């Protein structure tokens, strides 16, 4: 085997991704063990070796110049001086010559830094290739299954529609039940094989930043007009809601934190939960932010479709203001460490606030956790650690049409639930709604924090102060106040 072949074999990387959760298809990008942090270090190491080679070259130059100076010295009359000159000549020659001399060492180090750079490049290329967690074969199979199932779904849906319209069916439903109707009901179609993040990433290749921004700005403006048209109640402020979540178990894991997101989201009214974690070195606060709860713009709930588009357009929204107001009402001090946690729109809001200088100057955000949120277009300061849990079957994290960046302070866990060993997760991964559901994200977070990745472990270690549990931890819910409905002519008649 020649040297070149040997080099190729030696730079082969094994394995490329973490699969330590038994049977789960899961990948982790970014964070302290992410390839950017790692390759930055290795590039620095290659540079250090280059610098050492440069010093060796300088040492060789010095030796040559000194050798010439010694040679040009006048002939010494005294024998001891001649002995000293010979000794100095030998010493200087020894610096340069031989297998351990400066010349050879410089060659070795230069070759070594080149090889290190080849290795780093191979790592970067392997990372790019391996980031897709589901194999191409599995993707194609899922798409074919969805397409093949569509005619059967439509046929069944048609039969169900016909059956539902006949009088006997109505009588059955009013009385003993309708087993035929139940059997025919096609439910939600399997769509995640053809409508998923791949499709949006593909669109992202042809939609540049400016076009994307224009698109979401126009959408946000259009939905704002709809809010005016429907005279949507206006958000006023947040107020403390005593009693709710008062006996909540303190968060001791990241999955506990995400579970609180699910529970606050189920309230459906834009409420924000704030958990205060006392400690000897000062209180810490976990701010839990719900996702989209009004998929149109009429209810007065700030977490609506307009807020989604506006947040992606980089605008301040009422739902972000609600989070800020809740934090102010809760009396969170400016120097207290804060973890922002959110799902879907809640995750967008968390990252939007954590990347806004006015907000980070007001509050000491140290950690952000998001699930099922499109967060790639936000960049937080380097001292804020963020963890993003995503499902490739879920289209919402892909709505920004670009993959999350790999940064040392930003870790993304991608868990392909349709490939899971858990049948419940597999079923959730078949539909758009299921893939986005928080129950799936709670399961994925449990797997993510089970020691599968150095980046996630480092994130969790750094967030340990928020997860101490203990009797002093309190959870308080803050609820939105909006203009009364009777002030709104249209809704007063609903």
């Amino acid at each position: 085997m020649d040297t070149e072949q040997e080099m190729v074999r030696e730079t082969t990387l094994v394995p490329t991704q973490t699969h330590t959760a038994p049977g789960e298809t899961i990948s982790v990008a970014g964070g302290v063990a992410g390839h950017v942090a790692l390759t930055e270090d290795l590039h620095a190491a290659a540079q250090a070796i280059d610098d050492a080679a440069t010093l060796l070259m300088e040492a060789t130059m010095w030796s040559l110049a000194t050798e010439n100076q010694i040679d040009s010295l006048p002939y010494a009359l005294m024998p001891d001086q001649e002995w000293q000159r010979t000794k100095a000549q030998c010493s200087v020659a020894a610096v340069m010559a031989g297998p351990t001399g400066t010349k050879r060492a410089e060659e070795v180090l230069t070759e070594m830094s080149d090889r290190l750079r080849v290795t780093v490049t191979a790592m970067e290329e392997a990372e790019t290739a391996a980031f897709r967690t589901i194999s191409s074969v599995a993707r194609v199979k899922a798409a074919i299954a969805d397409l093949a199932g569509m005619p059967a779904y439509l046929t069944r849906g048609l039969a169900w529609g016909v059956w539902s319209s006949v009088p006997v069916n109505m009588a059955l439903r009013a009385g003993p039940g309708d087993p035929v109707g139940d059997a025919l009901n096609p439910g939600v179609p399997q769509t995640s094989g053809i409508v998923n993040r791949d499709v949006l990433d593909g669109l992202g290749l042809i939609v540049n930043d400016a076009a994307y921004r224009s698109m979401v700005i126009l959408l946000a403006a259009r939905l704002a007009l709809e809010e005016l048209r429907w005279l949507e109640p206006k958000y006023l402020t947040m107020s403390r809601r005593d009693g709710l979540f008062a006996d909540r178990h303190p968060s001791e894991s990241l999955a506990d934190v995400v579970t609180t997101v699910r529970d606050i989201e189920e309230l459906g009214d834009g409420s924000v939960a704030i958990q205060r974690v006392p400690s000897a070195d000062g209180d810490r606060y976990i701010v839990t932010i719900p996702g989209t709860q009004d998929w149109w713009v009429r209810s007065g709930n700030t977490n609506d479709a307009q807020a989604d588009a506006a947040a992606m357009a980089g605008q301040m929204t009422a739902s972000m203001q609600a989070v800020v107001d809740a934090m102010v009402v809760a009396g969170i001090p400016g120097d207290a460490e804060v973890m922002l946690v959110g799902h879907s729109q809640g995750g967008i809001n968390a990252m939007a606030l954590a990347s806004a200088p006015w907000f980070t100057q007001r509050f000491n955000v140290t950690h952000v956790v998001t699930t099922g949120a499109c967060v790639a277009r936000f960049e937080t300061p380097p001292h804020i650690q963020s963890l993003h849990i995503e499902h490739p079957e879920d289209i919402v994290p892909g709505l920004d049409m670009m993959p999350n960046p790999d940064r040392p302070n930003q870790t993304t866990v991608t868990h392909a639930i349709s490939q899971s060993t858990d049948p419940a997760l597999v079923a959730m991964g078949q539909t758009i709604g299921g893939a986005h559901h928080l129950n799936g994200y709670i399961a994925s977070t449990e797997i993510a924090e089970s020691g599968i990745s150095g980046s996630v472990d480092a994130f969790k270690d750094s967030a340990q102060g928020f997860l101490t549990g203990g009797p002093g931890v309190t959870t308080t819910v803050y609820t939105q106040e909006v203009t009364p409905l009777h002030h709104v002519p249209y809704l007063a008649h609903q």
Partner: protein
Amino acid sequence: MDRTQLLVAADAVTQAITRLQCAQETEWKSVAADHMRTELYGAIQGLRAISTAIDDALDDVGSLNFSGMYGLN
């Protein structure tokens, strides 16, 4: 020539080894990196040997200066 510069370079190579070691503890295991680590340890020893050789050479050249054959640096 200052031999301490080479010792600083040896430290830099030590740092390179640490970083390679970190890389090997992640999913990015590389056969090449394993080989390089051994070679880098060799390079550190080489740099230290060279710095000692430079030290000796500086002493000997210094002796020449002391004995009146100045003009060397």
